[in-house]
């Protein structure tokens, strides 16, 4: 019995404690005396945020985003145009290159023909020159050869005369000449 009363008393004390704690500590969220204050300041804060957003922030950010979208579209268009231009330029370049190559081929062919012509002419001229010189040289050689034969005859005649004289004979000029002429010819 004593134990029981003690237990009940203890329980009552604990409960009282809890109630006191609840009253003192409680949930501040359920303290209704602070509600008007919180609601007043909340509405003020929300109003301030709403004013800031609708008057400044939202139009400004929407403007920034629109500007950016415009800039990006513009840039893409410009890039597209530049790309087209680049393509045209490339085609023009390729055409110019092909033209230049064809022109070069033509010039090369022409030059080659001209050179060939010059070369042929020069060669023909050189051949003619060479032919003339050869003919001249042949004439000269023939002259020299003829000259040489005559000289041989004269020398032989002189020598024969000299030998005949040296042997004590009397050289008959016409006889010697005839003999030498006969010998040289033979």
């Amino acid at each position, binding site marked *: 019995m004593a134990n029981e009363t003690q237990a009940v008393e203890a329980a009552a004390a604990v409960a009282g404690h809890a109630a006191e704690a609840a009253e003192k500590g409680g*949930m*501040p*969220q359920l303290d209704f005396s602070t509600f008007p204050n919180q*609601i007043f300041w*909340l509405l003020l*804060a*929300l109003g301030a*945020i709403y004013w800031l957003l609708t008057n400044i922030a939202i139009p400004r*950010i929407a403007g920034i985003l629109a500007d950016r979208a415009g800039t990006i579209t513009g840039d893409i268009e410009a890039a597209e145009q530049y790309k087209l231009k680049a393509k045209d330029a490339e085609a023009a370049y390729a055409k110019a290159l092909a033209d230049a190559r064809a022109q070069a081929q033509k010039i090369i062919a022409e030059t080659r023909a001209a050179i060939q012509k010059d070369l042929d002419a020069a060669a023909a001229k050189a051949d003619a020159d060479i032919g003339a010189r050869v003919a001249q040289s042949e004439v000269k050689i023939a002259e020299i050869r003829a000259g040489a034969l005559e000289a041989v005859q004269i020398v032989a005649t002189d020598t024969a005369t000299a030998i005949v004289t040296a042997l004590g004979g009397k050289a008959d000029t016409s006889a010697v000449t005839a003999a030498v002429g006969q010998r040289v010819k033979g």
Partner: protein
Amino acid sequence: MAEEAGTGLVFHPMEPFKIHSLFSGEPISWYEFFVPTNTTLWMAIGVLAIALLMVVGTLRRAIVPGRVQSVAELAYGFIHKMVEDVAGKDGLVYFPYIFTLFLFIVFSNFLGLIPGAFTPTSHIAVTAVMAMGVFVGVTALGFMKHGSHFLGLFWVSAAPLALRPILAVIEVISYFVRPVSHSIRLAGNMMAGHAVMEVFAAFAPLILFSFVGVIVTPLSVLAIVAMYALEILVAFVQAYVFTILTCVYLKDALHPGH
């Protein structure tokens, strides 16, 4: 047990939620609604932070945004897309209201994570006003746009005829419970996380009084860190949930057909 705790550990998990006058530190009476309190201070800090982000951060109007402007544009784009995706193009008229709510909640939640700060959104009075605002506004909008057709929201025409009255009762009840769940979800989440951290914080100094503290103190410090990480997630997720539910309710008002 109770006496042991009484020797050193002090549990006041609800202490940081108390509202008092900013200058005198005294509790306020119900008629002193104009007296600046700690909730006023942190709402003001929130408004200031929002102004810094959304107004000062976008001052340069850069085509290639800086860091702050990127965040401002990200927030704008995030909510703008949410409203458009959930409520449809005609819901975009109400985008400024929804953006206001989102910014207030997200800043209040995150600023409240600063040690020693006060979290206005941990109070049911604050979240209930916002939720009731959404509820009343959306209901009025539904009736203004569709008149009595708005009641079609409760008449599930896809269900068999016999079931429709029962479903209508359920739909009406669920409709009126919306502001309750909408507000308690946010306030409850913000309060619970902070209160749990307070409890762990109360255990942290145990090492000063008892040998058990060798184990308990490091554990409670770890638990506070883990809770803090979770609370960072919760701070954003709850703002997101409140906002997307607002969009869903708005969608119901604009397009009541199921």
